[in-house]
């Protein structure tokens, strides 16, 4: 079985594709961590808002997806900006410690989740009534329409972000603030603005991710707390400040989990994840990276005495 190429390819395809939602969540989380220095667990709450806003728009307001998606984006962006302006900024002004931010963001996530529970109940919901997606067999591999949407969406989002960071002014400011906020301020770059822009980008990525997750299976208000854990682990393994490595890490983690099932029982999948995390933290505290291949410096030949 382990040598069947079709099987291995199937796992590769499906594993990578289902990692797409985790890629989006990790990018949002990791970018926030990079620019603001914070592990923003409140994003679990924003995930809930994104999903339920879309759900509400599609199923209760009867809007088409083309309107429901932007509606959800707007709701999530507002939540993120409010948290940023009235919560995180205040704590920053007080020079609060890591623990305070940790508690605050987690409590905000819980607060949002309780409201969503109150409003929407706890029965698992999907964005559309059916979770089945048309299948195409290509070279013996089952590829569904959902798979294509997922890959496409993720590629577009990630490419857009890369372009944004590289070629736009705001993007470059984000990088500057991430490197050294105080120094950036000296150059007239507003850290605050950078934080807001990051919040908006994260909100967009979150909404995209929740669309994918919500069209694939049932979501309950508590589900985001599980999802964010993946983002945390991938961010850590990718290395703090390395957003795209974090994205790669989520894919690698998903593949490891998927492939591991072939050689051991599925129920150990999650444990593998944590074991990996813990070992990685202890051995690679700065994230997994490979030593740079250094070019040997060109040393001028020693001048022999006498010329």
């Amino acid at each position, binding site marked *: 079985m382990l040598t069947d190429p079709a099987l291995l390819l199937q*796992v590769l395809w499906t594993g990578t594709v289902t990692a797409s939602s985790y890629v989006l969540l990790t990018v949002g989380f990791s970018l926030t961590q990079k620019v603001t220095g914070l592990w923003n667990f409140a994003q679990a709450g924003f995930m809930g808002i994104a999903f339920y806003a879309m759900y509400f728009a599609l199923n209760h307001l009867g809007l088409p997806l083309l309107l429901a998606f932007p509606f959800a984006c707007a709701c999530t962006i507002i939540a993120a900006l409010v948290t940023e302006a009235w919560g995180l900024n205040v704590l920053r002004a007080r020079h609060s410690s890591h623990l305070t931010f940790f508690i605050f963001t987690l409590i905000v996530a819980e607060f949002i989740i309780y409201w969503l529970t109150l409003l929407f109940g706890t029965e698992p919901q999907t964005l559309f009534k059916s979770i*089945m997606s048309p299948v195409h067999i290509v070279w013996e591999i089952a590829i569904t329409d959902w798979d294509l949407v997922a890959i496409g969406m993720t590629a577009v989002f990630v490419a857009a972000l890369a372009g944004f960071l590289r070629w736009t002014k705001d993007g470059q400011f984000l990088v500057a603030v991430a490197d050294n906020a105080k120094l950036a301020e000296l150059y007239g770059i507003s850290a605050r603005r950078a934080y807001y822009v990051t919040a908006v980008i994260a909100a967009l990525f979150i909404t995209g991710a929740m669309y994918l997750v919500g069209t694939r299976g049932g979501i309950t208000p508590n589900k985001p707390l599980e999802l964010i854990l993946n983002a945390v682990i991938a961010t850590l393994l990718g290395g703090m400040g390395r957003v795209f490595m974090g994205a790669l890490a989520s894919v690698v983690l998903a593949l490891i989990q998927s492939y591991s099932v072939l050689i051991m029982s599925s129920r150990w999948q999650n444990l593998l994840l944590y074991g990996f995390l813990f070992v990685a933290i202890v051995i690679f505290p700065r994230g997994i990276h490979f030593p740079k291949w250094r070019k040997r410096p060109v040393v001028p030949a020693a001048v022999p005495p006498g010329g």
Partner: protein
Amino acid sequence: MTQFIGMDRRQFLAALSAFGIAGAGAGRDAWAQGREPVKLGLTQPLTGSQAGFGADFVTAMRMAQKDINDQGGINGRPLELVVIDTQAQPQLGINAVTRLATVDKAGVFITAWSAVVKAQAPVANREKILQLSVGANSPDIARLGDYVYTLFPLADVDITALAKYTYGTLGKKKAAVLYINNDTGIDAAKIYRAVFEKEGGQIALFEAYDPAATEFTGMLLKLRAANPDVVHIHGLLVDVPLVVAQMRQLGLRQQITSYSAAYNPKMLEQLGAAMEGFIVTSLAPGADENPNVQPHIDRWIKEVGRVPNGLPFIQYNYDAVLICARIFKHALDNNKPLTGENLRDSLLAIKEFNTPLTGKTVIEGHRVNKPVYLVTVKDGKFTPLAKLD
């Protein structure tokens, strides 16, 4: 659903009085006279991931309460339901039963979800409050102590019957068992495996999956390699549709079986044609076998606007309230205070109950045995398949 057969509501209520709980002509004024209510505790998940079932269970029990009170209550006293949310979590279940026993002073309560039932048992035994489990199916429940009884058949009943039917009648020789890695799945999966192997079958794959998992490709490819004739999936509301959807999308066409939790209209919606041919067990008779069931379903549609989640469980919960009313009456008729001890004695003294929605209920030890009904999905609807005694 199938044709309307049987009694209308008036006839049904008459049957209820025949069941023996109507007050002696006290009528609806029982409330107005301010007679002290008889308290029945309910500890169910009203929030949390299982709330879809839990809330519906409570609705069904409230319907039973209304029917009882409309007939004059229990010896003229109104039946009161004290409902506490457990979120299907053991710790909250413990708090709930402690409160029912010591603050509300209820002598009996109805509960569900195996982990919660097990957690509540020591408290029930200690405080001497009668614990009636309805819906939970872990076989351990029959051994949890003097004050713990189940009014719902445990997993060994329906899973045993299903495994035998799958081998003997469906003729499947090679089975795969995929189960959720928690209380719900583990015990039942073991029973299926033991019975299927005893019948002479072979278990090609026996695999647990994490409750939080959403991606099952690896496991399903293992399944494909194992090449079974039939797949039994033992899981819950969120994971079973995912497993089935991914299975069908990978091109796996085997017969799938599951247990009562999959007997759920929402799953039909989510899976559509992928669920065609699915077989689930049901421990309660359908509208075809029992004439009281269809009027109950109609009542749900009229009062709630839809069919209930988990119809068989609903039937048991409704009947459980009637059983409680009957034991209350027995204790009151014998001038005994409504303590857990006396109510337990009444339960054992009566022993056989003509429960309208689930057929006869006989208490054997701490459990009940019932026929198992098999239901299949045909043309997008749940249709009765077989009855196994």
